């Protein structure tokens, strides 16, 4: 993990209010793994004060991309970056997917909204390992589907403007019951209600499942204790999302 001031390559539109920011960092590009994130300082001043976490969305040999929604001041500043300007990036932060080692035949990736963010690199890593991948991506409507770099993609939209009319978990469940994928492992990222539905699906089918979580962070490196994730088990205990996560074996946490 390091802090690096990185030149911005471009900021391009990827959907309704959705942008992809590319910056140059050969170090991060060559070391970051699926599920890890970058903690980015959007302003040199104090507005906002804290860094903002974003999953690594895509990399080549020298560059890294993140994909984001403009929701507040930090993302608005990132959207406004021009080529040649710089951003201050801490990373790679967190631990990648791979918390669970159960053997499986097919990786089923489920993304809700910008929960798609960690899935392209995961897809690439799985391809390198020779694992077949099936992907399910859901969003409010067509404009919210960021589809690049995914494999065997099935889309669900809340308004039916593309693909399945309904939730992405319902779509995935239907697919899982009608198609034979062998031993399946689920990988999911998205809003909490979606992840809860994925957890139910995994439990019902006895499938291993890893999720990538989102939530407020103070530091992103494990020093503030600001990002608790409740652990499964009798005793009340928390893991740190930024350090032990953001990826978790779903059986180990309570969401």
């Amino acid at each position, binding site marked *: *993990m*390091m*802090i690096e001031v990185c030149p911005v390559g471009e900021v391009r539109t990827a959907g309704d209010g959705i942008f992809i920011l590319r910056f140059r960092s050969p170090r991060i590009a060559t070391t970051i793994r699926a599920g890890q994130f970058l903690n980015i*300082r959007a302003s040199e001043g*104090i*507005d*906002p*004060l*804290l*860094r903002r976490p974003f999953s690594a969305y895509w990399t080549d040999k020298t560059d890294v991309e993140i994909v984001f929604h403009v929701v507040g001041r930090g993302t608005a500043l990132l959207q406004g970056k021009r080529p040649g300007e710089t951003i201050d990036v*801490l990373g790679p932060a967190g631990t990648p997917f791979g918390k669970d080692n159960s053997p499986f035949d097919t990786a089923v990736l489920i993304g809700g909204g910008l929960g798609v963010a960690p899935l392209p690199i995961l897809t690439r890593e799985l391809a390198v390992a020779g694992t077949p991948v099936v992907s399910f991506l859901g969003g409010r409507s067509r404009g919210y589907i960021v589809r690049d770099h995914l494999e065997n993609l099935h889309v669900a939209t809340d308004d039916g403007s593309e693909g399945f009319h309904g939730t992405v978990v319902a779509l995935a469940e239907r697919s899982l019951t009608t198609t034979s994928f062998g031993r399946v492992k689920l990988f999911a990222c998205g809003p909490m209600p979606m992840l809860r539905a994925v957890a139910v699906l995994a439990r019902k089918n006895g499938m291993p499942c890893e999720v990538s979580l989102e*939530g*407020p*962070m*103070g*530091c*992103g*490196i*494990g*020093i*503030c*204790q*600001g*990002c*608790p*994730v*409740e652990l499964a088990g009798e*005793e*009340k*205990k*928390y893991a740190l999302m930024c*350090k032990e996560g953001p990826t978790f074996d779903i059986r180990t946490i309570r969401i």
Partner: protein
Amino acid sequence: MATTSFRLRNCEFKNRVFAASGTYGYGDEIVDLADPSRLGAIVTKSLSLKPRAGNPPVRIVETTGGVLNSIGLANIGVHSFLEEKLPHLRSMNTAVIANIAAGTVDEYCEVLRILDDQEGIDGFEINVSCPNVREGGLSFGTDRAAIADITRRLRPMTKRPLIIKLTPNVSHIAEFARAVEAEGADAVSVMNTLIGMAVDVNTRKPILSTITGGLSGPAIKPIAIAKVYETARAVKIPVIGLGGIVNTTDALEFLIAGASAVQVGTVNFVDPSAGIKIADGINRYCDEHGIDDVARLVGSLDAGTGISVVDSWL
């Protein structure tokens, strides 16, 4: 180059910039990002007798120029600290101040006793000012008799520097500083966080699980400087100033207002090497201003004929 070292009792700090409790972990996550050996000291996350899970989420929310936190003193407990963290901390080649939190006076004593046996602990900071736990913390910190009592009990137990960390959530912080000075504290840290609150207007729920939390960061700096000024005029023991320091100028303001040393907290979340930059910046300032010892800055405020409202209750 100016002399930067600072002495408290039998402990010499290489400079006057420390990492604040709860904002630097136990030093281990930081080492990739910054070199702790260039700080005057690392103050550990508050240690309690038993491990503490801490408060449920949400624990952190950003506000204008600040951070509200309700960590609830989550920590691994003093025993795991000794086993898992202290060896590494000791290797960092800077002073280690163990910060202690507890729910009862006996527990403060017990934790201090356990730590005082150890090599590699250079001093103690007693947290009587955490606003995010129900037992202990602020209920002590806002009670003058209680913090005097804690100091009285702890003082004979250690030969190392004993620093009491005060809360700003009181009318006259100077009275609290005087109370612990009278009981033999070697220094006071001014200040812990201010009680604050944020509401999610869509759900109409508090954002933090404990409704209120502690406010830190640059937003509170002017308040912290005033508290340091007030305290430093009231006591003879050193005041360690903190609250909202993010750069060299901020740290200089504290020193000039009366702080003998400073701690940097929240800024570590954004830039873990901020403390080092500040220590360097203070040196540069001294060189530029022909100051041969940072000590000469301490309390060097030239207030002219000005009189502050805080003077009226000193």
